[in-house]
C-alpha cells in the first residue's frame, strides 16, 4: 500500500464517482476521509450510492471537523480572497487543506481554488494535493492500472470520457510521454 490516509473534497468526489475504475482509490489508500461539510453537498444518487457503499466497507470514513479546524479554514478563505487574480478557496476545500496539513493526509481535489491556495498561501504550501491525474499516475506506478502499450492514452481518455473532465494539455502531454517511456522500458 502506497499511502494510508487521504481526505477528499466535493469537486473530487462528484467527478471520481463517475469513473468506471473508481474503486482503485481503495487500493491506493487504506482510508479516504470525507468531511461532514463535504458529505452534505453530495446529492446525486450515483455519488451517494458509491459513498455509502464504501462507508459501509470502510474504504471511506466520515471526518467530523473540530471548531479550531473550521476557524483556521475560515482564515484561509479570507486570506485567499485578498489575493488578486486567483480563484479564492471556499470553506469545504479550505477545511480539507487544513485537515490535510494538521494530519498529514493527502488532499484529493479537482478544485482550482484549492490548488491555487497551495501554490500561493504559505499556511498550506506543504500540503500534498492530488488531482485525479496524480491518482491515475500512482495507480499505474503501483501496477493497479495497467497500460495498454498499443494505446497508452486510453487510461486518461477513459477518465475524461466518463467525467467530462479534461486535463491541462501540458500535464496530459507530460503523463503521456512518461507512459510511452514506461512501455519502452517494459519491452
Amino acid at each position, binding site marked *: 500500500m502506497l499511502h494510508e490516509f487521504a481526505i477528499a473534497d466535493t469537486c473530487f468526489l462528484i467527478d471520481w464517482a463517475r469513473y468506471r475504475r473508481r474503486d482503485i482509490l481503495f487500493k491506493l489508500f487504506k482510508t479516504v476521509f470525507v468531511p461532514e461539510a463535504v458529505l452534505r453537498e453530495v446529492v446525486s444518487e450515483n455519488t451517494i450510492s458509491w459513498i455509502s457503499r464504501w462507508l459501509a466497507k470502510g474504504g471511506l470514513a466520515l471526518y467530523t471537523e473540530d471548531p479550531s479546524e473550521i476557524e483556521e479554514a475560515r482564515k484561509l478563505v479570507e486570506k485567499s480572497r485578498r489575493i488578486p487574480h486567483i480563484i479564492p478557496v471556499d470553506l469545504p476545500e479550505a477545511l480539507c487543506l487544513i485537515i490535510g496539513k494538521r494530519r498529514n493526509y493527502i488532499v484529493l481535489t479537482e478544485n482550482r481554488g484549492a490548488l*491555487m491556495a497551495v*501554490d500561493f498561501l504559505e499556511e498550506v504550501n506543504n500540503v500534498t494535493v492530488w488531482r485525479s491525474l496524480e491518482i491515475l499516475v500512482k495507480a499505474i506506478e503501483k501496477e493497479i492500472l495497467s497500460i495498454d502499450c498499443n494505446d497508452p492514452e486510453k487510461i486518461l481518455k477513459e477518465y475524461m470520457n466518463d467525467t467530462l473532465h479534461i486535463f491541462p494539455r501540458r500535464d496530459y502531454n507530460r503523463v503521456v510521454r512518461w507512459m510511452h517511456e514506461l512501455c519502452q522500458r517494459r519491452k
Partner: protein
Amino acid sequence: MSAEKMSKKIQKWIELEEEAKRIRRVMADWNFIEKQPPRIKEALKYYVEKGDIRRASLLAGMNVEEFRELLRKAKIPVIV
C-alpha cells in the same frame, strides 16, 4: 514570497486559465446554454469565462453537484 516569485506564479495560472477558457468556449453547447432560463444561462456563461464552480453554482442557485451535472449537459468540461 517575493514579488517576482508571486508574479511568476500568477502568470502560470493566468496561462493555464486562458487555455482552459479557450477549451470551455469551444466545447460548450451554446444552443443549450442560450435556451436556459436567465439565471442558469448567466451562471453557465460565468463558468465558461472564470472556471469557478462555487461562484457559478451560487449564481445558478444550485448545489455544486447539481451544477456539475448541468455543465455536463451543456458540454462544458472541467479542466484541472
